[in-house]
């Protein structure tokens, strides 16, 4: 893609992307920079604005997960003086009460699932274990571990939607 075309597409899409990320993370600007960096590096062959937009949002969703994963993987000692303080939730709930409700929905849903399904979900979202490592730990094929994780996410997503707590599904 020509650099000027890429620039103009990025400019046009930035407000929408920022709003999208702002509903899902507490560091939307930082994440948006990461998305643009990825997109610029990949320089995808998108024939029109619509396909470019689809590509950008695909990358954005992956970055949301990646950002969560990076934070979970980091057991670090950060100088207090630096003023660094991690947000409690990756989402931007209107209130702490909402955040608590979200967590309650997640926990309640997990409580209804099979232990091996919950295990994959917890391992993948709170640890640095890869799906391959999880599959090895559980002694199952990779696709089984992936399927278990997806099942947990589907159940939680449905419960969040039902409770009106899933970030707006429209972009």
């Amino acid at each position, binding site marked *: 893609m020509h650099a000027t075309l890429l620039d103009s597409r990025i400019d046009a899409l930035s407000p929408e992307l920022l709003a999208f990320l702002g509903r*899902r993370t507490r560091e939307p600007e930082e994440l948006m920079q990461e998305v643009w960096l990825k997109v610029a590096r*990949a320089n*995808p*062959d*998108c024939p029109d604005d619509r*396909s470019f937009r*689809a*590509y950008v*949002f*695909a*990358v*954005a*969703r*992956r970055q*949301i*997960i*990646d950002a*969560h*994963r990076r*934070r*979970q993987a*980091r*057991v*670090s*000692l*950060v*100088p*207090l003086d630096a003023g*660094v*303080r*991690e947000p*409690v*939730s*990756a*989402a931007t709930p209107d209130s*702490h009460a909402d*955040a608590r409700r979200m*967590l309650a929905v*997640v926990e309640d849903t997990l409580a209804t699932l099979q232990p091996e399904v919950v*295990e994959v979900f*917890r*391992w*993948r*979202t*709170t*640890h640095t274990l*890869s*799906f391959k490592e999880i599959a090895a730990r559980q002694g199952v094929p990779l*696709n089984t571990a*992936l399927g278990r994780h*997806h099942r947990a*996410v*589907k159940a*939680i*997503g449905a419960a*969040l939607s039902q409770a009106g*707590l*899933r*970030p707006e*599904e429209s972009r």
Partner: protein
Amino acid sequence: MSCEHAETTTLLWLYGEGPEDHAAHVAECAECTEVSALHADVVAVLPEVEAVPVRPANGSAWYLGGGLALAAAAVLVALVGGRPAEPTLDTAVALAPATTFEWQAPLSDLTDELDALDAEFADLSDELANL
């Protein structure tokens, strides 16, 4: 499920374990886009790294970040052994943000986590000793 990648390659790609160029497929595939949206939205509401202030023996204050911060804080306090470590676990808990959520991993995993923490703490101790 009509796309063979939706619950395989797309999941691996989403969690950083698949080929980078799979983004192009996801962008063009409605089913993979839906799967991506679902996973991103669920991960977005999960509790993040907790932060608990821990004060090592040299008196400088630190935040200990980690999913098991409270448990880790307890272990850190224990790890410093003979040296006085403050705040104690009680104060660490008291200083924890009011909205800190418990997100407990299975206990069996705590050992791995704590081993890693132990190693990291040993490195830090060495660094401090060399200052």
